[in-house]
Structure formats: structure tokens, C-alpha cells
């Protein structure tokens, strides 16, 4: 079996260079899926859980296909089955309970869960989701998982003396899930730790979590870490010690102002560079995205650069999300051709 990044190169790839294209994970849900969920929650309707399951399968097929049509090399299902990045997992882990919505900002709320007793592996998390997507996609599938530090930080902790201990317990559960995913065939896992950006001083805790997460996971499994919307100088270069293959970073939003952070000290991992903004509703032009991709070469050589949006695309209008992916892939292919032709200055 081909290892490293080469295993993700499509068989019909035209260029010698290969800038792997992928997404962070979440994608706008079709309106009818939200409607189906409302019906399933409403006791007055006979729209039962089986029908909801069917609707989620349909949505996963549709959005996986949308990723394929955009031309991405590695796809996900747009997290169609997940309601929210913490709630979804808290719902499946024993030890969590829910009390109701709390405010994030304005009238945006989430059902912030409470850890009420020791956490343990409850219901299966993502194996079904992975197997379904892998079964319908004609190309590699990535599995994003909310990281233990974020699962701990964005919950109420009623049961543990500190969030650190809770994060470690959750890391062991994430590890358990990854073992199952790898058994099911998954080769590319992405740990999402947005909470690291809010409390950068805890980078050592996140590192200790990752050590637990990759314990006994075969070397060939590609593990990425997604971090977004923070001051990276507060966590870099320390994060290079983490046992991961790739860092997926939001940088487009700040117009690469923070890129210098990663050039001051040699970047020794692969870089998945955000090249489109996840929070502007305008589709960037191919030319603009190409310029963004070239910024990545200031940090890593082409063979270590992955091309990705800044963050999950779920808050965008769906046509805009699709437009961004499509232009992003085209831009990557054009830059590859220019690299092949020796037209890109890499110094």
C-alpha cells in the first residue's frame, strides 16, 4: 500500500505535483434535513426516527457527492448527522447530561452539556458515519472528531476536580473511537480543537491529550489537528511537539498576517492551509485563491502543503460553500501545473 500523502493522490491526477485538497468538515445542511429533524422531534407527526435516518443518509449522499463534484481529493459527508460539534459527542458519551440552551452570542445558543459523572464510552460515535461515506465515495474519506480539550472546555464540569483531568479521560475515549475507525478502514483522522485558541496557555494539556489519542494507533494513519481563530504565536512552535502529521490552520481570515509566526521557526509538520474564508459570503476568485496557496510555500514545500478552507463551511449559504470548494480545487490544480512547469518561485 502506498503510504504518506501519495495514497490520497487520485489515479487520474494530471499533474506531477500534488497539492492535496480537502475540507475541514462541516457543511451547510439542506433545508429539508432541518425540516425533517423538526418533524421527527414533534410528537404530533408520524415522522419517526427511521425516516429521519433515511433523510440523514440521503443528505450524507448528497453532500458527499457535492464534495466529489467540487473535485476534492479527500472528502467528508459535511457532518450531516451531527447537530453541533460538542452536543453530538456529549449525546453519545455516558456521563453527560443536558439542561437546556445557553447563549454563545446574540440569539445564537447551544445545548451546552454538563458532565455529571465519570465519562465512559456509550453509544458508537462515528463508525457508521465513516462506513456509510466510505461506501458511497469513490475517493478517500477524512473523519473529523471534536478533540477532548474542546469537549471538556465547552461543557459544564460537575464531576471532575478540573477540566484537565476531564480532558484526559475524554482523550482516552477519542482514542477508543479512532481504534474502531481504523479497524473500519479509516486512514485520515482530524482532531478539531478550537478551544485551544481561547486558552492558548493550555497547549501542554492539548499535547498530553494527543499523546493519549494516538496511543496504539498505527503509524500509517494520518492524524491532523485543526485549530482556528487564535493568536498562534502563543502556541507555536510548542505545538510542533504534538504527535500529529498535519496542522490545519485558519489563516485566510486574517489575510495571512500571522504567517510569519510559522516562518520564524522551521515548520516540521505538514501544513493544511486555509485558503478560503469560512465567514464571508463572497466566493473568492481562482486567482485570489492561487495567491493564497502560494503563501503556503513560504512555510512548507509543495509536497507538504494541503489546501483547505479556513474552517467548517456550515454557516455559509450552500451555493457559496460549493463555489468556494470548486474554485479552491481549480486553483490548486492550476498551481500544480505551474509548479510542474517550473513557473513558481519557491525561494
Amino acid at each position, binding site marked *: 500500500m502506498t503510504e504518506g500523502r501519495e495514497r490520497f493522490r487520485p489515479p487520474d491526477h494530471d499533474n506531477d505535483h500534488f497539492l492535496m485538497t480537502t475540507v475541514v468538515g462541516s457543511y451547510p445542511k439542506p433545508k429539508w434535513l432541518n425540516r425533517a429533524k423538526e418533524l421527527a422531534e414533534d410528537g404530533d407527526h408520524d415522522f419517526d426516527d427511521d425516516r429521519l435516518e433515511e433523510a440523514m443518509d440521503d443528505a450524507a449522499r448528497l453532500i458527499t457527492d457535492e464534495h466529489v463534484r467540487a473535485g476534492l481529493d479527500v472528502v467528508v459527508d459535511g457532518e450531516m448527522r451531527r447537530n453541533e460539534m460538542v452536543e453530538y459527542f456529549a449525546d453519545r458519551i455516558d456521563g453527560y447530561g443536558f*439542561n*437546556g*440552551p*445557553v*447563549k*454563545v*452570542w*446574540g*440569539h*445564537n*445558543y447551544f445545548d*451546552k452539556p*454538563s458532565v455529571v459523572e465519570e465519562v465512559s464510552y456509550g453509544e458508537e460515535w462515528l463508525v457508521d458515519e465513516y462506513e456509510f461515506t466510505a461506501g458511497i465515495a469513490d475517493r478517500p474519506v477524512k473523519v473529523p472528531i471534536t478533540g477532548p480539550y474542546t469537549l471538556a*472546555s*465547552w461543557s*459544564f*464540569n*460537575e464531576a471532575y476536580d478540573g477540566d484537565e483531568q476531564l480532558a484526559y479521560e475524554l482523550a482516552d475515549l477519542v482514542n477508543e473511537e479512532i481504534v474502531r475507525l481504523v479497524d473500519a478502514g479509516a486512514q485520515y483522522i482530524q482532531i478539531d480543537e478550537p*478551544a485551544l485558541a*481561547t*486558552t492558548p496557555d493550555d497547549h501542554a494539556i492539548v499535547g498530553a491529550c494527543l499523546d493519549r489519542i494516538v496511543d496504539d494507533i498505527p503509524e500509517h494513519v494520518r492524524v491532523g489537528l485543526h485549530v482556528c481563530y487564535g493568536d498562534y504565536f502563543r502556541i507555536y512552535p510548542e505545538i510542533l511537539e504534538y504527535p500529529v502529521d498535519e496542522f490545519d490552520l485558519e489563516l485566510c481570515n486574517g489575510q495571512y498576517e500571522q504567517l510569519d509566526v510559522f516562518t520564524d521557526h522551521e515548520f516540521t509538520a505538514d501544513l493544511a492551509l486555509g485558503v478560503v474564508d469560512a465567514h464571508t459570503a463572497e466566493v473568492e476568485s481562482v486567482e485570489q485563491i492561487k495567491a493564497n496557496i502560494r503563501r503556503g510555500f513560504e512555510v512548507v514545500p509543495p509536497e507538504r502543503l494541503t489546501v483547505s478552507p479556513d474552517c467548517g463551511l456550515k454557516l455559509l449559504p450552500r451555493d457559496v460553500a460549493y463555489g468556494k470548494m470548486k474554485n479552491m480545487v481549480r486553483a490548486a490544480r492550476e498551481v500544480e501545473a505551474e509548479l510542474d512547469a517550473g513557473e513558481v518561485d519557491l525561494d
Partner: protein
Amino acid sequence: MTEAIATTPGLFPLPDRAKEELSDLKGHQKGDLVSGSESGEVVDVYERARSEAIERQQAAGLDRVVEGQLRWDDMLAHPLAVHDSVETRGIVRYYDNNNFYREPVVAGELDYDGDVAAELDAAAGVDQAVLPGPYSLSELATDEHYGDEAAFLDAVAGFLAEEAAALPAVETLFLLEPSLVTDPPDDGEDRRASAAVDRVADAVEADVVVHTYWGAIPEKPYAHLMDADVDAIGFDFVSDHETNVYNIQEYGTKDAVGLGVVDGQNTLVETPAEIVERVDWVRESVPAQEFETVYATPNTGLFFLPVNRFEAKLEALAAAAEEVSA
């Protein structure tokens, strides 16, 4: 003999039904947040939610009743966010939380607005007002008009003093000053921060409690704050009891004290006995200090909590205060 008063720093969660109604009526984007000139339907939802908040406090048996600050989409930045001379820009992080508010950019003279007074005028049964402290409000905002930090703090203090003077008669005014802890004032600035608090406190007849949270104020700004003519300083005994008790031991405090003894950011509900124990611990730790009044409160505002836990905490707090007084 110590009188225990059960109260809160306000900033309540909206009832769940109001959360839904207001999301539908107002929307989810930054431009949809409260502007100070809401439409009829929105006003109705807020009025109902406000009545519920007041009844809830009365039913729990709290000794002071707040309006709940349910319209404060931008939390402590609210009084500026609705001001005509202030532009609201991007969404920025609210202290070290997974919460965000619109960055208020002061682009003109901070003259009298009256938003908070109007809110209290509409709320029968309220006997405690809540305002951001001048230092915290100035730290949460960006100044593009006054030009330097001292002038800006002075302007914010003047603005808050006018807002406070216009409030209907209440027993107590809570000035919330978390920034004194999270971004403490430097040398020189600490004196100005204290003077700014003094200026707002002077504008009202009510007893004034300057409440601090998310840790403890460093010694110097604390010593300066003691110069302000306020009735009590409030301390967060949930997040840092040792440094707070040290401040009291070392520099003393006012004859009344605010004790943040209920965790406003965790769903674990304290029993009345646990709350009493925390109050007693403080009193025993500073035996030299005899408090005339103890304001027993949650450490922070309460919008961080789901409604059922928020309600349970109000009840536990009221029950605890009765035991302290007894």
C-alpha cells in the same frame, strides 16, 4: 449582628421560550442585535420575559430583585452598544469565555442616553440596578473620539454617572467590574479607575456595591479601590478565594461586603448549607472585620447557565441567606 442580603449581579438567561421567539423576530446575525429602538413585538417579548424574571426572584425569596438585563445582547457592553455615538463592529470575544459581543467603537460625545433608566422604569418590583463599572466598560470598548485612555475613562465615568442619576429609586446599585481583575489597571491608571467608580457611585442615593470577578484584583488597584466612596466591594470566592481573602486581611474592606459564593458558570447547584459554609469561611478568615451587611451573590452574571439551573441557584442562594441571617 450581620444582615445577609441574597441578591445577584443580574445578566440573567432569557427564558427558553423568549430565546426562540427573539431569535425568530430578531435573527441571528450581528446586525440583528438590540439597537435601543426595538419594534412592538420584540418589546412585548422582553416585557413578558422581564415579568417572569422578576416573579422568579420574588418566588425564590431573594432580598433584592433585579431587572435581569435580558436585553443586553452585548452583555456588559450594552449601555454603549445602544448609544447613538457608538458604532458596533465585528464580533469579539467576551473575556475568556466562549461568548462574543459586538465591539463598541466610540465615535462621538458620550452624552446622556437613558436606555437603562427606561428599562428599569418599565420594571415594577425591581429594587436593585445593575451597570457595568466605568473601568470595565472602557476596557470593553474602543475609543476613536477622546484620544487617550485617561480622557476616555473619564468620559465613560461621566456617561455612567448620568445614566445612574436617571435611574428610578432603588435600594442598591451593582457596578460590575470584572476588568479590574482580568486586565488590571497599571500604576496611575489604578487611581483613575477608583476615581471613576467614585464618580458613578456619587450620582446615586442607593447603596453601591462594586462587584469584581474572574479572580482577585491585584493588591495595588485593590488598595486604590478602597478609596472609592462605595458601600461594599464584591469578591469572587468561587474562582479565587485565597487571594480575595488576602486582600481583605491585608487592606481591609468596607463595612458591607459582596461575597460571590455561588458559581455562575457551572450547572452544579450548591446546597444552601454549602453556600452558608462559604460565607462562614470568609467571616472566620477575617475575624477582625465585622460586616454590617453581607451581600451573598453568584460570582458572575447568570446568562452562562441553562434556565433550570439558574432557577435552582436562585432558590439555594435565598435559602442560604436566611440561614446566615438567622
